């Protein structure tokens, strides 16, 4: 019984991490209509930026995480402004650009930090045990921070003019512009927000797992899986899908073991997609 509960807690904390990771991915698709192949790259930059801030600049861990988020957000902002913005109405070109960006990022990380995993671990050790239920402090902190940031993103998207304008532009860019909203001003901000979220996830999560310059592919794959399951472009769908994936992954890892666990995940996703081909929630943004 305790094992079941502990696994559920692991599943939940995985789910929250996945949710934070995939929010940025689905946001960029929902609002700009761009598939960001560099998403995993920004996740790694977040990890390495936090690592560098701690090890080379001697920053305390929370400051390093904040710095990593700022750096990735700024990088995303600049990339959108300089590279992607003028092609944003096109579909193929931004994909090629983000793919190229991803190759540059992962190669640069290998050149700068080397191919070996970096020695980066969470500053707080130990775990919380209570009546046989068990969670490491690191996971607990990551869970709380991720949940807080997800709530903040929700408020930003659904309770502010900024979010309203972004969602309006996702629905109909032309009409939104004619009503006084300026995509050229909002799109770089949205992209920076999304990459900042990927960077924050990387900075928080890599010290509890590993930090290596080869993580990008699997991170991108996981984001894709979650976002397709949740419904492309849907924020709520991405969060729900993340929890499903987190829970399935945690249970199958414990009760089925390594490769069978991954198989179980794909089977579950496949079944859900057969029942709901457009994912759990339709896209926010553009109508299907």
């Amino acid at each position, binding site marked *: 019984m305790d094992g079941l509960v502990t696994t559920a807690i692991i599943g939940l904390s995985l789910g929250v991490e996945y949710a934070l990771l995939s929010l940025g991915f689905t946001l960029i698709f929902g609002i700009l209509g761009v598939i960001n192949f560099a998403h995993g790259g920004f996740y790694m930059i977040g990890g390495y930026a936090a690592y560098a801030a701690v090890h080379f600049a001697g920053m305390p861990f929370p400051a390093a995480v904040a710095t990593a988020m700022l750096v990735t957000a700024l990088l995303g902002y600049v990339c959108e402004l300089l590279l992607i913005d003028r092609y944003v109405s096109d579909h193929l070109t931004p994909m090629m650009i983000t793919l190229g960006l991803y190759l540059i990022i992962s190669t640069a990380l290998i050149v700068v930090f080397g191919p070996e995993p970096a020695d980066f671990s969470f500053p707080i050790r130990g775990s919380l045990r209570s009546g046989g239920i068990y969670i490491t402090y690191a996971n607990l902190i990551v869970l709380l921070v991720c949940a807080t940031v997800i709530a903040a993103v929700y408020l930003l998207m659904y309770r502010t003019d900024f979010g*309203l304008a972004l969602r*309006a532009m996702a629905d109909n860019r032309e009409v939104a512009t*004619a*009503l*006084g909203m300026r995509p050229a001003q909002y799109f770089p901000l949205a992209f920076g927000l999304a990459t900042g979220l990927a960077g924050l996830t990387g900075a928080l999560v890599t010290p509890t797992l590993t930090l290596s310059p080869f993580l990008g592919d699997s991170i991108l794959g996981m984001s894709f899986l979650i976002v397709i399951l949740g419904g492309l472009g849907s924020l709520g769908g991405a969060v729900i899908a993340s929890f499903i994936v987190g829970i399935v992954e945690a249970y199958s890892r414990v009760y089925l073991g390594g490769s069978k666990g991954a198989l179980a995940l794909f089977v579950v996703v496949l079944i859900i997609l057969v029942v709901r081909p457009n994912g759990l929630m339709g896209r926010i943004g553009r*109508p299907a």
Partner: protein
Amino acid sequence: MLRIDNLCVRYGGIVAVRDVSLEVHASETVLLVGANGAGKSSLINAVIGMVPAAAGTIAFEGRSLDNVACAMRARAGIGYSPEGRRVFPSLSVRENVLAGAIGAGIADKRERYDWLCGAFPLLAERARQPAGQLSGGQQQIVALARAMSAFPKLLLLDEPFLGLAPVWIDRISDAVRQMQGRGTTILMTEQMARPALRLADRAYVMRGGEIRRSGSADEIRAAALADEYL
């Protein structure tokens, strides 16, 4: 308020608006009537800046709009309700209305929203429903309210009666009168000359991208009647 001189709009080789000049004075309602393809939408879209003017000038409040981007025209006080409503389908009715008032202060927004809800009970009844789920006439009300929530100085209405039953035409007409009551200047297009002329002070008749006739609403109505019986 709005002055258009020798405006041309082209799509590649097609000339949609040819050498059109017209003027809309403060607080008046001007109607552009014409059949399909007359160039009404092209003219409206050139005023808001969704299509470029190939030649001619458009001036709003004495200032040329030549180098003013679409979004900035809206911010300068031009409200726009597009042909075929084009509400934001995934946004709620309330969000659609507020999307027109982005940038306004919180108190302003509340005041405008409350006023619009008072004018159109539908907005309050369906506030939380995605606008894409409404009927055509209901969506037209939302599109109007969205344009009105900016409290624009000049309101552009492109075929607000398109595809609507008489009862909805009456409701939309009431909405337009509410705006007129606030002193808003309106430039509207319509194929349905009769109900539209009841709202207008003056009218222009467009055909083949050109203005063929202009005059007071009564004159145009009389001319239209004469045409029908000839």
